C-alpha cells in the first residue's frame, strides 16, 4: 500500500553525498568537482569532491563539475551534500576584473587552475575564460537564471557581492 506523505512545489532537485579531504572547507554555493585523471593521485577518500584547483589539472577541462555545494562541508572525516540537479539559490562568481555580463540562460563554467596563470585560485563560475584559454572546452552544467554583472566579477571571491542569484544545475 502506498500513500502520499510529502508533496512540495520544488521537488525537482537531486543531491549527492561527498567526502572532503581537500584540506579546506567547501563553502555553500561553491562549485564542486570530481577528481579527474591528472589529480587522481591526491584523491584519498571515497566519492571525494573538491574545488576546481583541487581536482582538475592544469589546462584540462573543468567538465568534471558535480554541482554546487549545498552546505559548508568541513575538511576531514565529515561528509556533505552537493546539489547536482535543479534550481539553486546562489552561485559563486569568478573574479575577473573585466566588464563581463552573463545573461540569463547562458551556461557557466569554471576556470581550470593553472599555476602562474591569471586564472589560478579562481574557484567561481563565469561564462568566459575556458573557451580560449583551455583547449576549447565549453560550458559547464550550471545555467544562469539571472544577470551576473560587473559587480559580481569584481568582488573578492567569497564576499557577499561575489555570489550571483538563481542558477539551474544539470549535473546528472
Amino acid at each position, binding site marked *: 500500500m502506498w500513500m*502520499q*506523505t510529502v508533496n512540495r512545489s520544488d521537488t525537482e532537485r537531486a543531491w549527492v*553525498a561527498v567526502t572532503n579531504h581537500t584540506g579546506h572547507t567547501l563553502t555553500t554555493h561553491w562549485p564542486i568537482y570530481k577528481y579527474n585523471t591528472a589529480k587522481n593521485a591526491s584523491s584519498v577518500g571515497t566519492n571525494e569532491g573538491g574545488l576546481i584547483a583541487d581536482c582538475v589539472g592544469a589546462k584540462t577541462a573543468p567538465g568534471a563539475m558535480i554541482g554546487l555545494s549545498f552546505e559548508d562541508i568541513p575538511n576531514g572525516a565529515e561528509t556533505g551534500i552537493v546539489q547536482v540537479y535543479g534550481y539553486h539559490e546562489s552561485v559563486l562568481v569568478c573574479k575577473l576584473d573585466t566588464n563581463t555580463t552573463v545573461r540569463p540562460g547562458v551556461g557557466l563554467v569554471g576556470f581550470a587552475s593553472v599555476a602562474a596563470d591569471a586564472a589560478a585560485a579562481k574557484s567561481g563560475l563565469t561564462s568566459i575564460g575556458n573557451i580560449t584559454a583551455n583547449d576549447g572546452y565549453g560550458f559547464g552544467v550550471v545555467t544562469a537564471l539571472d544577470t551576473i554583472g560587473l559587480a559580481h566579477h569584481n568582488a573578492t571571491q567569497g564576499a557577499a557581492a561575489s555570489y550571483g542569484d538563481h542558477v539551474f544545475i544539470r549535473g546528472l
Partner: protein
Amino acid sequence: MNWIYNILKPVDPSEVGDYLVRCDCGRVYWLKASDKIKKHHLGHVMKPLEQGSVFEFLQLKLGLINRRTFGEWLRDKMEGRAE
C-alpha cells in the same frame, strides 16, 4: 540507553535539511542525516521523497528515519566504515 530517550523525539525539519529524501538505493532519510547515514550512502543520488510506504510513515513518526537499520550498521561494520 540514551537511544531510548531519542527514539520518540520529534525532529526539527530545519535542522535535518527540510527535505525527506529517497536515495536511489531505496532508503528514505532526511537530507541532512547523520554522518553515519551519509557515509553509508556516499555517491548515491538523493531526490525529494514523493511517495512513501505506511511503514516508512511509522518510522518517521517514531524518529527512526535518520538512523541506520541493523542491516546498514552490519554492512558498515563489515566494510570498515563509521562505527
